């Protein structure tokens, strides 16, 4: 019967109920979208790194594991790495961020193609000129690019020479030498990819290279890509929790105001229940159940909305952002919404539970 009353109360004010559900849904979507973006971008980066086909990755000293911290001299490839036994190919690349979410990657195709046979083109082909750029089909689709088109990036005009299958290294690839000159990094690279003759030799080569390149970061590709999680990106976890906390506060305040209004509106009904012998716990229980229904339905709506945000980001936002759907976060985001909402319902709930029945019955 309590559930019936809860359901009827929610049905009685459909607009308020829908707004409540929507606000909680948005709160849940906000959390899921942020978490989904973190995972999506990192998974995508890991998958593109794996797509290179290298066995070992070398980064210069400094920076975090995932975020490149600087440059190293390109000549370590011929001077140190190529001379290492079992190394069959090595290629340096330079990464240059063009905005918050996009970056150009400079590649020397002559050495890079030896790692796994090179890019697989859907249209056009490799660079012909120093100002040529190759883009993956995702980027080309987002920006409506075709082979032969010219785009401006980093204050430079690039001609699209080819469109390749996604999942290989980066979205925008330009000749290494051109990017080095443009960014005043002549002779420098930010990552070196290494291929060895046999997977059994990977550990040995890593050990040798680590010994020779003391402060450099030398990883097997397997170890490197396994590190692509929000926990390994500086500040990202903190940032996620800040957003989650904001979500909790927003949910709390929303439910507080909604339930406060509901309690005021229902003063008389609460008086009736009290006259019938309802205990303060009974009244509180009704309001908390109503809130729990709002929060649970809101969480489900939030999960569904996260598919909408993914669609929007994928189709309408022209960036390299990829939002993953992370079902392991569904119960977390839902629990956050439910707890925030229940906390918000407590204050009006206690007000209702303590209401004087005579005053309540006299309320019009």
């Amino acid at each position, binding site marked *: 019967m309590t559930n019936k009353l809860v359901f009827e109360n929610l049905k009685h004010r459909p607009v308020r109920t829908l707004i409540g559900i929507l606000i909680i849904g948005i709160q849940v979507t906000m959390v899921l979208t942020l978490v989904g973006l973190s995972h999506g971008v990192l998974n995508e980066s890991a998958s593109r790194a794996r797509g290179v086909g290298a066995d070992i990755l070398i980064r210069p000293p400094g920076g975090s594991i995932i975020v490149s911290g600087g440059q190293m001299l390109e000549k370590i490839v011929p001077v140190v790495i190529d001379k290492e036994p079992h190394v069959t190919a090595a290629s340096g690349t330079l990464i240059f961020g063009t905005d918050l979410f996009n970056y150009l990657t400079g590649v020397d195709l002559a050495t890079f193609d030896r790692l796994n046979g090179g890019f697989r083109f859907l249209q056009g082909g490799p660079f012909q000129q120093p100002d040529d750029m190759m883009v993956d089909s995702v980027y080309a689709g987002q920006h409506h690019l075709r082979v032969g088109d010219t785009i401006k990036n980093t204050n430079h005009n690039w001609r699209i020479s080819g469109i390749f299958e996604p999942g290989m290294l980066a979205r925008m690839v330009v000749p290494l030498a051109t990017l080095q000159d443009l960014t005043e990094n002549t002779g420098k690279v930010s990552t070196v990819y290494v291929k060895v003759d046999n997977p059994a030799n990977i550990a040995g080569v890593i050990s040798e290279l680590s010994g020779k390149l003391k402060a450099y970061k030398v990883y097997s590709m397997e170890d490197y890509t396994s590190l692509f999680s929000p926990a390994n990106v500086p500040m990202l976890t903190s940032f996620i929790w800040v957003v989650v906390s904001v979500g909790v506060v927003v949910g709390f305040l929303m439910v507080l105001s909604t339930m406060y209004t509901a309690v005021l509106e229902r003063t008389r009904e609460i008086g009736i229940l009290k006259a019938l012998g309802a205990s303060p716990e009974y009244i509180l229980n009704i309001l908390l159940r109503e809130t729990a229904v709002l929060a649970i339905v809101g969480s489900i709506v939030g999960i569904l909305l996260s598919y909408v945000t993914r669609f929007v980001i994928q189709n309408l936002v022209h960036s390299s952002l990829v939002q993953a759907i992370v079902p392991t976060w569904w119960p977390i985001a839902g629990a956050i919404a439910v707890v925030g909402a229940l906390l918000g319902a407590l204050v009006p709930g206690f007000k209702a539970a303590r209401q004087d029945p*005579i005053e309540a019955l006299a309320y019009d």
Partner: protein
Amino acid sequence: MTDGQPLISIRGLRKTYHAGEVDVQALRGVDLDVQPGEFVSIVGPSGSGKSTLFHIVGGLTPPTAGTVQIGGRDLFGMSDAERTELRKNTVGFVFQKYNLLPTLSARENIEIARDIAHKNGPLPPQFLEVLRLLGIEARLDHKPRALSGGEQQRVAIARAIVNQPSILLADEPTGNLDTENSNAVLGLLRGLNTRLGQTILMITHNPEAAGYGDRIVHMRDGHIE
């Protein structure tokens, strides 16, 4: 409670309300006994203290002084939880404004009183007979807004007695009804009293309505005359 003892025993009841800096004496020493199975009408003009007496006997508000015993138990010697328990099982209220929950059907309004008293499940078969007596058995699935005033008040009476309370407290139960519906409701209360032995304490300012009771108690200026 032993045989011959009143079901309700009120002694020296006083109630003072503080309205700003002014003290209003709503009850100025009321003594009243109501026997089990008695139908007592309390009559008096507005401001005579009838409603205050009703609220105190129903355990909705405490007196300033005096005692109220129901079934030999001191109402205000109890804890809040005990008084709440008493409202569930010992006292049933009927109000002038019906006070049905607008979002629930007539049946659910009755069932929620059972739910509050921890009695689950559908209405017991013997209670269906009471609903027939009240003439609302065909209107149970309607929401209050679809019922006439007389029907709403009959649902409110059904709700008040569904837990078989010792006392039915009715505050101006015909105050919002036309003559025909008033007579029907008063006849029903009379029927509940004579057929089921329901003890009823009814407040009214209408002398004709008061005539349905076994005994009429007149109140004026916080006293029983």
